[in-house]
């Protein structure tokens, strides 16, 4: 099944249903399908076909959505790139993907003009704004000038439909090849096809170059749910749109949740339409999710969704019932503990914890999380790295974790981030969770720094709450009294805010660099 069918099937059943709202513009399924098929025809006239790579370099828009479905219609490969990527990363992604066409917003014109001479495969630049980009046509001009419409081309379900670059928090981004089959399995397994019954309205504010954004669009449209799209997240606008569009479903990253709760408009807006609020993309601090549960309407069902680009999104979820802090004292304590978990695997996911020898570990033991599901990526583009899939079909996620007696999975940090001090393994997530229990701590990240005596030392980067006054020694002692003494941070450095990527994931390499400089200076 071509993923373009996620649009064409509901469009054939409910052509006049409102489907997409973006900055005041409204489109039905039929209108969008027509624009998509005309854009596909115009791209085909430019000589683009099956297997060719089309990149998108822009913030979210209805044209971005149309560009993806037009690309899928042709059987071409969509390459959504991070518009915040630094120039070397951008060069790497566009060159490695051998893109023949880039669809870009006008704000990226200068960047693209500078890169073009280094991209021999690049033939076309198409503007995604109303104004042309570097002499090339705009998306709207292509749609208007198309001689006809192009229907879904035949594809092999193992063809790559999206080449999605990982966030690159530890190294250069890697291109993850996701197939029509991967997305079909995810979408059909996650939602029911539109059937004319009310399916609500979804607000998508995460970047569409991220797996969470891409899958949110696909599931929303296939289910017949109206898609309200934000160019970029902004707390005040998000709250306004929920009220005005009567939004029922939304996905946020933890930093966005916190910004919403702190927004001046929060108490003034009517959020009663919200039924489901999913979050993920980065670790959710316990104090933030507790505040969200207390402050949002009690009818909101919270879902913590954990996944990877390599697994076509979600692997585990912590569902609404796990977020309802009701029951006996013991039940509430158990739920509070589990709020720091990523929940349990989805039905189509097998998950286990393994040690360094690959053997399965017992309940409670920390090891690498490995998963097996039919929607694991085809591999990394150009064999940039081993796929991490072993002979048994298990993907080694490089995320460390453990499972409790009820099957809930808890993260312990990235495998590459594990700290080994004097032969003792220390999970950064455990120390970070302890630091976040301190009332003065807003956020914390823990890394290992090289040390001649111990191999590594535990170092913490901490951002304090506004007005809080806490010393490094106090935080170190706070951890020592709650953890094995070797786990306490020996170096604590204060930041106004921790460096993060667009999805709110902490950039540990930046923190390591900052703390390394600090250490070199004797701090």
């Amino acid at each position, binding site marked *: *099944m071509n993923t373009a*069918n996620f649009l064409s*099937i509901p469009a054939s059943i409910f052509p006049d249903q409102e489907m997409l709202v973006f900055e005041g513009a409204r489109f039905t399924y039929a209108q969008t399908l027509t624009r998509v098929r005309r854009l596909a025809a115009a791209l085909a006239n430019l000589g683009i076909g099956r297997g060719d790579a089309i990149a998108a370099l822009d913030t979210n828009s209805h044209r971005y959505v149309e560009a993806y479905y037009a690309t899928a219609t042709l059987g071409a490969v969509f390459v959504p790139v991070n518009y915040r990527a630094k120039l070397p990363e951008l060069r790497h992604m566009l060159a490695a993907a051998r893109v023949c066409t880039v669809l870009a917003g006008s704000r990226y014109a200068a960047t693209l003009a500078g890169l073009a001479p280094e991209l021999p495969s690049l033939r076309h630049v198409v503007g995604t704004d109303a104004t042309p980009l570097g002499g090339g046509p705009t998306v709207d001009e292509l749609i208007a000038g198309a001689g006809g419409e192009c229907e879904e081309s035949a594809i092999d*379900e193992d063809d790559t439909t999206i080449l999605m670059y990982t966030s690159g928090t530890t190294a250069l981004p890697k291109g993850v090849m996701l197939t*029509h*089959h991967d997305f*079909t*399995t995810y979408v*059909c*397994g996650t939602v*029911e*096809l539109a059937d004319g019954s009310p399916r609500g309205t979804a607000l998508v504010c995460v970047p569409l170059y991220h797996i969470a954004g891409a899958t949110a669009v696909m599931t929303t449209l296939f289910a017949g749910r109206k898609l309200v799209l934000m160019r970029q997240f902004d707390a005040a606008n998000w709250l306004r749109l929920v009220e005005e569009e009567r939004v029922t479903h939304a996905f946020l990253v933890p930093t966005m949740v916190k910004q919403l709760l702190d927004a001046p408009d929060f108490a003034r807006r009517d959020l009663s339409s919200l039924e489901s609020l999913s979050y993920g993309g980065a670790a959710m601090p316990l104090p933030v999710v507790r505040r969200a549960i207390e402050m949002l309407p009690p009818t909101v069902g919270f879902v913590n969704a954990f996944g990877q680009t390599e697994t076509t999104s979600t692997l585990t979820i912590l569902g609404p019932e796990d977020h309802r802090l009701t029951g006996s004292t013991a039940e509430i304590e158990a739920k509070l503990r589990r709020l720091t978990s990523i929940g349990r695997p989805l039905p189509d996911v097998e998950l286990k914890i393994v040690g360094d020898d690959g053997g399965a570990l017992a309940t409670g033991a920390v090891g690498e999380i490995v998963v097996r599901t*039919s929607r694991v990526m085809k591999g990394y583009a150009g064999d940039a790295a081993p796929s991490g899939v072993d002979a048994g079909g298990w993907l080694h996620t490089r995320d460390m974790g453990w499972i409790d007696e009820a099957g809930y999975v808890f993260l312990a940090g990235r495998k590459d981030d594990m700290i080994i001090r004097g032969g003792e393994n220390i999970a950064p997530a455990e120390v970070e969770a302890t630091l976040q229990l301190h009332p003065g701590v807003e956020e914390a990240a823990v890394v290992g720094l090289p040390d001649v005596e111990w191999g590594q030392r535990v170092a913490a980067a901490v951002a304090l709450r506004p007005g809080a006054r806490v010393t490094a020694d106090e935080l170190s002692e706070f951890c020592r009294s709650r953890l094995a003494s070797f786990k306490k941070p020996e170096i604590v450095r204060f930041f106004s805010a921790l460096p993060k990527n667009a999805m709110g994931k902490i950039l540990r390499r930046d923190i390591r660099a900052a703390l390394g400089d600090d250490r070199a200076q004797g701090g």
Partner: protein
Amino acid sequence: MANQLGKIYVCSACGAQVIVTKGGGGTLKCCGQPMEQKK
């Protein structure tokens, strides 16, 4: 059918096509005969 999610089936008699959006344990039939998976 259990692992046929997203697969397209064709009726060799009338040409009808169906896409499986939820797999099950049965066999798809059209015009009185089993439908064939589209290659």
